[in-house]
């Protein structure tokens, strides 16, 4: 993901709350400290499909906003 960002693509990492600090630290380590981190409610494992859709409902508008911000 860091490599894609360095190539100029629109990128983001989707993670749940407890992994936010790890995500930020890894973004710094890989030289992309400005990598957007889209936070969804924890957990991601052990969810019924409706709850997975709920997580997607949280993430998708943020992903769309990210794309809109990069429109020419």
């Amino acid at each position: 993901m860091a490599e894609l960002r360095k190539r100029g693509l629109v990128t983001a990492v989707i993670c749940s709350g407890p992994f936010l600090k790890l995500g930020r630290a890894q973004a710094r380590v890989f030289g992309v400290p400005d990598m957007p981190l889209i936070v969804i409610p924890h957990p991601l494992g052990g969810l019924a499909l409706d709850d997975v859709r709920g997580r997607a409902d949280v993430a998708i508008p943020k992903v769309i906003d990210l794309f809109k911000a990069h429109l020419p």
Partner: protein
Amino acid sequence: MTGLSQLLKAPGASVETADDFEAINALCRERGWSDGLPVVPPTAERVERMLAYCDRPWDETVAVIPPRYGAATPLLLAANAVMAGCRPEYFPLFVLAIEAMCEEPFNLYGIQATTHLCAPLVIVNGPVARELEINSGHNAFGPGRQSNATLGRAVRLALVNIGGAIPALGDMSTFGSPAKYTYCVAENEAASPWPPLHVERGFDAGASTVTVVGAECPHNINDHESLTAEGILTTIAGTVAITGANDLFYKAEPLVIMSPEHAATVAEGGYSKADAKRFLYEHARLPLGKFSKENIERRLRIKYPERFAKAGMDAPVPMVQDADDFMIVVIGGAGKHSAFIPTFGATHAVTRALKLHDGQLAPSVEAFRRT
């Protein structure tokens, strides 16, 4: 070779504090340079004594430790070895263990950052295990021997201090594990009826090796009654067959530790190590119906469609993909026990031989000594 005083002039290479045990430990705790236990102050003098057993440049990167991807140089590793309480002659083996666990197949990033509770287990084989008196007998996984205790602790300190495996930041383990404090043993080669682990993995018997495994803690297997190979192996297979192992979902290499007495019974029954693995592969199985409905539908049927897509509830689920995936090592003292060590799953054990900087096998740690 650049001298230590020169290397310590680099920005951030050293800190000055009061020459006081409590003050130095307070500083280490504040900076997060600790496993929580007091450390031996890594003074320049102690670090230099550790580096006496290093035959390569002290500022050369020997490995890069995730998730911080910190460069592990002999200088930094020596500081961690001092902090852990290592004797200088342990240093070559410690460096080798770090190099082995930073190889790609081991997946140290995953092992460091996962929610699983694994820790790198260091298994030592060959003459250096005996030279350093690494415990392979009674209480080998437990306390009592300086080499086991401090080599394993040095690994953990390097993983934290260089690699950034800081709880809830770079180490996301849900529980952690006592094995994360220290986890280093030797195989009891003298008491094993079979070729030792390093020979099985393609090394000369005279080589000294470390094998690193992304491992859980040992789980005991009690069998005081079985008189035959099949009896012992049936008890082991029954303990190995569990529904909640990471190993189920990967090309994993779970570890079976046999005590010398159990191994002798199995070998006297005519079983080679390969035969024992085959027995475990065939008998350590659970019927599909023992798994939860969600694990069947969402994981097993999807991960292994050729085997389980349409399988009924009686279909046997093996614990590994192939018989050879089991690792068997003989460790321990007297007693009718074996142990099972599941792994992180998404990892492969790595074995490396102890070599001098010129590539020659090291017959003794004394071959590294420079002063």
